[in-house]
Structure formats: structure tokens, C-alpha cells
């Protein structure tokens, strides 16, 4: 791809990245970090591409290792973030249901 196109994408993505998280309460710092962490697990796509290209055993071995690591990053990251956020759910409705459920 054209270098200028890539630089354009890069610069615009930097600004979007800055903008979307500029105001966030400290309560959400941990889930946000964890969610962003899961998003970069999309390197899995890159790992699959290089595994497809692999010709030697060394290349294949390294790319299989990359796929395993990237999958752990991506899948594990989204699951653990969801578990964190589950705790925040239903500050009004959900929680009331839950505590009344406890009493039964």
C-alpha cells in the first residue's frame, strides 16, 4: 500500500484513540485497559497470515506459537474484561433483582 495512505490512517487513528478515552473515570481504568489489551490480540489475524505463508518448519513452528499467544491474548482478554464488567451490571434494576433473589 501507498506509504502516504498508511501514514494518513496512522495519524487519524492516533487522534481517534486520544479522543475516545480522554474522559474516563478511574473506576473504569482497569476494564478499559483490559479491553484495549484484548483488541490488540487481533494480531491473531497477522499470525494466521504468516502461518499461511510459512514454507519451512521453522517458520511454521514460530507462526503456530504466534497464533497460540495471540489467541490467548484476544480471547482471554475479552473474557476477563467481560467478567470485570459483569460486576458493574444493573446498578438499579439488575442489582435489585439479584439481591431479592438472594433473600428467597
Amino acid at each position, binding site marked *: 500500500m501507498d506509504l502516504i495512505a498508511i501514514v494518513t490512517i496512522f495519524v487519524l487513528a492516533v487522534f481517534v484513540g486520544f479522543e475516545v478515552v480522554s474522559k474516563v473515570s478511574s473506576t473504569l481504568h482497569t476494564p478499559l*485497559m483490559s479491553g484495549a489489551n484484548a*483488541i490488540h490480540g*487481533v494480531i491473531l489475524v497477522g499470525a*494466521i497470515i504468516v502461518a499461511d505463508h510459512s514454507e519451512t518448519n521453522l517458520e511454521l513452528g514460530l507462526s503456530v506459537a504466534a497464533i497460540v499467544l495471540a489467541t490467548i491474548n484476544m480471547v*482471554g482478554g475479552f473474557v476477563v474484561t467481560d467478567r470485570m464488567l459483569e460486576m*458493574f451490571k444493573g446498578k438499579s434494576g439488575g442489582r435489585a433483582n439479584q439481591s431479592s433473589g438472594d433473600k428467597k
Partner: protein
Amino acid sequence: MNRTIYDLIGLSAGVMFILALKGLSHPRTARRGNILGAIGATIATIAVFFYASEGNELPLNNLGWILGAIAFGVLVGVPAARKVQMTAMPQLVALFNGVGGGAAALVAIVEYLKLGDTASTGVVIATVFTVLVGCVSFSGSIVTFLKLQELMTTRPVVFPGGRFIIAATLLGTVASAVWVVVELGTTPLLILAALSLIFGVLFVLPVGGADVPIVISLLNAFTGLTVAAGGYVLDATLLIIAGTLVGASGTILTRLMAEAMGRSLFGTLFGAFTAKPQEAGSASETRTVKSGTPDDVAILLNYARRVVIVPGFGLAVAQAQHTVRELADLLTAKGIDVAYGIHPVAGRMPGHMNVLLAEANVPYEQLSEMDEVNPTFPQTDVALIIGANDVVNPAAKTTPGCPIYGMPILDVAQAGNVIFLKRSMRPGFAGIENELLFDPKTTLLFGDAKASLTKVVGALKAL
């Protein structure tokens, strides 16, 4: 599938990632945001299987290996994420981040092996960047994991000549990076990877325990940038977008975290080298502290009008969230005004304590952030500090040069009475003596937080 459709799918995944980060910034939309991100990542992953790049045909080569590796990754990652104790969650996030950086470095190495001399200079530079930063992120995250898991000391590790060794390693790393770009070849690249791994370890070792979350966040941003560079190497637009988004938002987040802790990023990373060595607290051992019984604590609480509970990591370790809620409910029933004072970094990470208390169904309205609760301490009769130490340590205000100096603290010293529930006199995570423990208005109740709280609840009921 042709390139246009494939790129459009990549674009929609990129949009989902933006919306995911946006959603994650607000409590109400956070969970939806995360799920949207997961959907985006899944779509992007599935699309690769149906896209034949030039000269290749479907199905992908090595398909069995690819699917097997993904299945294995899922089998490792999902149970780890589901079963981890919420208290140990920060180090798991660190570990996930590290393996992501490692994956990016491996991807760049494989692509480099394959391209050999045909790689353009731009691609080689991006490869070098990916390998370097990916390896730093990988080994650095492993060290943060070891620190948070307390498998190694949480204090800053500083050795004689440390800063020269770090500077030399950095210089060597940069030199080998230039070597790769100029000479090309596999050997320089592997030397670069090895030096980067060592640099990652050296870079995190001097960081004190309380600052580790900031470093995790920084390494997270690093990994984002490596993924973006990897995307350039592979000509994959989605990776450039996703990686840059994480790199940029991660940088902002790191700064926000550092601000919440009253630390400068520079001070966090290099503070251990500039701080004056601490004077040994030998005098403190001879001083006496006032330790009380659960009954004493119950009486203090029973006759209070306002109680502020300050939870810390000790509460989380003891799994005492539910007991503390029981205590708070009991006090509320007696007409006592109860609030929780949550320090931004209570626990191990910003927001960690909110997660833990939410798990115990503590009403959200009772959780007060530091700025709200600090002005109310003079009207507070009892500050009940459960397994916290550094976040209430007045040394942060009074002792310039100590590792936490400048960190905003909860002003519990302003309250009428201060009660500490502690396991022992051991200093907190940052390893600093707390003067407040020796204050005449302080009562200490030693023991496991949950056992102590259970006794206090029993004593309160008996009153």
C-alpha cells in the same frame, strides 16, 4: 473473497474497535463496548480464512495447524480468564498483554525470514520496531506479573551501576536494530530480539510495586504500536488501525492513571534511580502501637455517627468483601452513616476495588471517590481501614523523597478515630513505614481481615 470485500470487513472491524473503546469509557455502555470489540475481532479473524492473497489459493496452507493452534489458545486463555480470582486479575491482564507483544514479535520475525532480501527498507524498519518493542513488552510484562503475583520482591530492584547497565543494553539494542536495517540477515535480528528481551526486564525491575499498574498500561500501549507496525509489515490495514487505536488510547490511559496516583510517568519509570535511599526505620520498632480487641472496635463503631470504610488489597486477599458489606448493613440499620472511601488505586490497579466491591453487591451509592470523601473526614467519627496502608500513609504528604511522595491520599488522620485491620505491622506494598499506626487515636486489630471483621460483626450484634 476479493480484496475489496476483505478490506471492507476489516474497516467494519476497525469501526467496532473504536465503538468498543468509546463504550468502555462509560459505566453504562462498558459491557456492550467490550462485546462489540469481541465481535469485531471475531469477524476479522473469520474473514482471513476466506481471503486468498495474491498467488495463494483457498483453503489456507497449514489449515490444520492454524485451527489447532487457535483451539489450543482458546483452551488455555478462556479457563484462565474465567477462573482467575478477581484479586489476581491485574497480573493476568499483564500476562495477556505480554503474550500479545510476543505474538507480534514472532509474526514480524516469520515474515522477515520469508521475505529475506526482498524486503523494502520501510518493511525492515517496521519489522525491527515490531521485534524490539514486542520483545520489551513480552519480557517486561512477565516481570510485572512476577511482581504482582509476589513471586519476586515488589520493591524497586536497583543494583550498583544499574543505570549504566540499562543504558548500555538500550544502546546495544538500538545498535543491533541499525545493524539489521543496514546488513539484513537473520543473526542480527535474533541478537536484536535477545537484547530487547533483556532490556524489557531491566526496564521494569526498578519500578516499585505501587507503580506497576502504570507500567502495565504503558506496555499495553507499546504492544498496540507493535501490532500497528506488524500491520505495515503484512500490509494489513486492520492491524494498523487496531494497533494504533490501542497505542494512542493506551498512552492517554497511562497518563490518566499516573495523574490519579499523583505520579509523573518519568518519576514512575526512573524514580528508583533518583530517589534518596530511605533511612532505616529502626526507631519505629521500639515505639508502641495501641492494639484493640474486636469488642473495642465494635464499641467505637456502635457510638459513631459517621463511619468511612477504607478498603485495601488486604480486604481483597482475605475475600472479606461480603463480610464488610454485612458490617456496613448492620451499621446502616443502626442509623449510622456509612460510606466507602475508595482510593483511585485501591487494590492493585485503578478501579480494581470497585470491581471487587461490586462483586459483593455493595450499593454503588455508598462508594465515594477520594475527592468526595476527603472533605468529610473531619466530620467522620471512625475511619475503618481494612487491609490498606499506602493509600492512607501521611508520608505521601510529609516525607519528600519517599517512594509514594506526592501521591494523593485519603485523609483518614482527620477522622475522630482511626481503626486499622491489619495482618501484621508489615509495611504496605510500597514498603514504607506508616506513621499513622503510632498515632494515639489509632487502634489496631491484628489478624486476617475476614476473621477480624466476622468477630467485629459478632460483637456488634451482641451489643
